[in-house]
Structures are given as C-alpha cells and as structure tokens.
C-alpha cells in the first residue's frame, strides 16, 4: 500500500511560534504547496502568519520550491523563514 500522507516540517522562528516541528497530513488530489499553506493558515492564531506574515520559504523533498509546486503523497514539505547562515 502506498503512503497517502505528507510530512510537513517547520524550522527556526516558524517552528517556535507554531509550537510544531512536524505534522503528518493526508495528501489531497491536485494540491500545491500554496494550497497547503492556505489550509494551515486557516487554523488561525499563530498559523495565520503563514499567509499574512513575513515571507515563508518552501522546500519539497529538500529542494527549494514555489507556492505553485505540486505536492504529492509521500512528499516531505518544509516551511521556514528566509535563511540567515554564513
């Protein structure tokens, strides 16, 4: 049986403010990373910042992605603030 879920990970300020490091969500048909962000933002409270707050970067399966990038069952999707290493 194939895995019908997505793993969603959060890092840095988002991880702290959402109080969440990782979620497992059911995979929806024809879903994009942007759809997933909008769905999570509807949880309200600190989650609303995913759409109305500071910029959120997206990675799918550990490669940078855009809101229009499709997400599929088994994918690892990550949301995080703009990076500040170096």
């Amino acid at each position: 049986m194939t895995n019908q879920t997505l793993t969603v990970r959060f890092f840095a300020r988002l991880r702290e403010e959402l109080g969440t490091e990782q979620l497992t969500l059911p995979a929806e048909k024809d879903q994009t990373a942007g759809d997933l962000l909008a769905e999570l933002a509807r949880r309200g409270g600190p989650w609303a910042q995913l759409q109305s707050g500071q910029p959120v970067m997206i990675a799918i399966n550990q490669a940078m992605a855009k809101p229009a990038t499709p997400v599929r069952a088994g994918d690892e999707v990550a949301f995080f603030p703009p990076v500040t290493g170096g």
Partner: protein
Amino acid sequence: MISIQSEDFDSGSEYEALRDSGAGTGAIATFTGLVRDSGDTQNVSGLFLEHYPGMTEQVISGLIKEASRRWDVRKARVIHRVGRLLLQEQIVFVGVCSAHRGDAFAACEFIMDALKTSAPFWKKELSEAGEHWVEQKASDVARGDAWDTGDRQP
C-alpha cells in the same frame, strides 16, 4: 567535501588538505567567517545556529557544482558550524583550489554569497535581553542576486 558540525575547525589543516590537490593547482582562496558583535541586537553574547539536515548538504553540494561549471575548481571545501557559538568563534569556512587566482577568488566568493541566501541555516542571537531570530539582510540578497544577473561574472 562538505561538513556540518558543532565542533570547531582548524583552518590551517584545512588549507594544508587543499594544497594536496594536484600539480595543476596554482591558487587557493579561503574564507573564514566569525561570530561578531554587531548584529540586530545589543550586547550579543553568542549565537544559536539551526539547520535543515540533509537539505543543507544538498544545497551546498549544488553550489559547488555550479561554481565548478562557471570557473576552474579543482577542489572545494565547505565547513559550517551549528549549535551554540560564542563571540569571535569560527562559524564558516570556504576553500577553493584553482589553476589561477581569478577563478579561486570568484568561486570562493560565489559559494559564500550563495550559501548565505540559499542554504537552510538560521541564526538566533543570544543576549542578556533574551533571544532574537536574525532576519535576512537585503544586502546579502543583493550580493547573491548579482551572481545570477551576470554583474559578477569574471
């Protein structure tokens, strides 16, 4: 070679390892970044570095491949520390071996600039007043973008 580690590194031995890259190498450029005391908040005592394990290595590996496509790169070494770091500690090392200095300088600077805006690391400043996530600087984004638009082509 890429290392993401909490331990400090010895830039002298990293340089010696880069020298061992064949008779064609005529130039080695290295960059070392330190934790400094003039960030977004006052009286910073240190930093906490978080990263996205796996993706970090993939992104940096892609940057080294991109640098090798654009310039003569015979060997490259990137070390980035994570976890808790005190002021003046070493945080990042980039070293590049090339036939000539122009390629070594450019590839080293490109890898460092692109790492700052694309590798998934996040800095949190620690001070007496508490903790503060550092925000991405427009000047860093501009430096990264300049390599894409061709403004920094040798």
